[in-house]
């Protein structure tokens, strides 16, 4: 935990529950907080509800506004009429970059967010260039998305979020479908970005390397929360929730 200045709560979720239209329960009384600057991992088996949870974090779900907002981002409730402000602060990285990269060129896509926020002209071009550089894709502005590798597409999407100057990044399976190099590069990127992050992933090594704290979600409810090393080392509990102890912890030498 950080010492010193009082921690600002970046994200607060209080007793969030959600049912799909067909009745299945997706989230059951989920509550947790993320402090500013923290990087928290969200792990759990498939179907645990991670993606559903994420769609709540920027107001895309529930379809009809709840009676009282249960999610707050930097103190602002996630509900109308605050949604535009929320979406400016929350950078949601979708699992399939092809869904998120919807403009004909990389440059236009990264510019989309800031444009919607009112940025334009030379400043916009500069910001696009800056964020592309930040993710290691300098000069990619004119490239069409179709020819990019999956890792590159992911990074473009990330650049798009950074261009909006999002204060909290919510990442859904950022390293899935990446080759080892892509994974390595993305891990390094996330580790070095000072932004608050909530990372849902199956890549337990990513969690160990990037997130000091972890939340375990299973069948819509939080079943464990705490320091990454502690939680992930508890082998029996990991297996119980459809996970396993990552190799990186099996062979850790004390440092």
């Amino acid at each position, binding site marked *: 935990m950080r010492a010193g200045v009082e921690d600002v709560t970046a994200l607060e979720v209080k007793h969030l529950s959600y049912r799909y239209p067909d009745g299945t329960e997706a989230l059951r009384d989920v509550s947790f907080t993320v402090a500013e600057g923290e990087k928290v991992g969200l792990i759990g088996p498939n179907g645990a509800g991670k993606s559903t949870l994420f*769609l709540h974090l*920027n107001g*895309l779900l529930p379809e009809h506004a709840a009676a009282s907002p249960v999610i707050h981002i930097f103190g602002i409730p996630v509900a109308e009429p605050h949604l*535009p402000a929320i*979406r*400016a602060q*929350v950078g*949601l990285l*979708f699992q*399939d970059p*092809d*869904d*998120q*990269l*919807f*403009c*004909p*060129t990389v440059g*236009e896509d990264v510019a*989309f*967010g800031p444009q*919607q*926020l009112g940025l334009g002209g030379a400043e916009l071009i500069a910001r696009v260039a800056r964020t592309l550089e930040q993710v290691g894709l300098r000069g990619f502005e*004119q490239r*069409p*998305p*179709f020819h990019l590798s999956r890792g590159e597409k992911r990074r473009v999407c990330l650049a*798009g*979020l950074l261009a*909006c100057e999002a204060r909290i990044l919510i990442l859904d399976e950022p390293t899935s479908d990446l080759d080892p190099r892509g994974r390595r590069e993305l891990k390094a990127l996330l580790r070095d970005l000072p932004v608050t992050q909530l990372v849902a992933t199956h890549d337990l090594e990513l969690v160990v390397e990037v997130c000091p704290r972890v939340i375990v979600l299973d069948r819509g409810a939080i079943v464990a929360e705490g320091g990454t090393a502690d939680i992930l080392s508890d082998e029996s509990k990991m297996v119980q929730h459809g996970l396993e102890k990552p190799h990186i912890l099996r062979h850790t030498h004390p440092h």
Partner: protein
Amino acid sequence: MGAVLFAVSTVLLPRSAWAGYIAGGVVLILIAGLSRIPPLYLAKRLLSLEPFVLGVALLSLFQANGLGVFLAMLVKSTLCLFCMVVLSGTTTMSELLAVLTRLRVPGLLVTTLALTYRYLFLLVDEMERMRRARRSRTFIRRRFHAWRSLATIIAQLLVRTSERAERVYAAMCARGWKT
């Protein structure tokens, strides 16, 4: 650049003067030379003929002055095709869309064109993958089944398309899309 070529091609059409054709052809060859399009590619595009086009061209012979019409048509369409191939080889989609926006084409149409272009290749790719998968599992070659499997592929593609459309909408909203 694109807009200029666009205007040129429309002018090329309503003329029957042979001198005009030659001049037009020269201009186009010059532009093509400047544009660095590989000549083999250009030749291939110019020579590929769709059956419909071929059919209509041949049918045009069956009338009074048919040959004149046929030749004029051939020349005109080749010239214009040349022009369009050069256009599509030199202009990017973004430039085209920018031109359209400047011409005050409604935003909805421009957005639609942009999205269509973006997802076109992806969908064609998906379609190819599905066809390959189906071909590798087809042993019976009955006619009607071929049609049925074609339809199933199309239906599957449609379902995936509509699901993706939902996700794209979510992504657009997530980045503050103002309708």
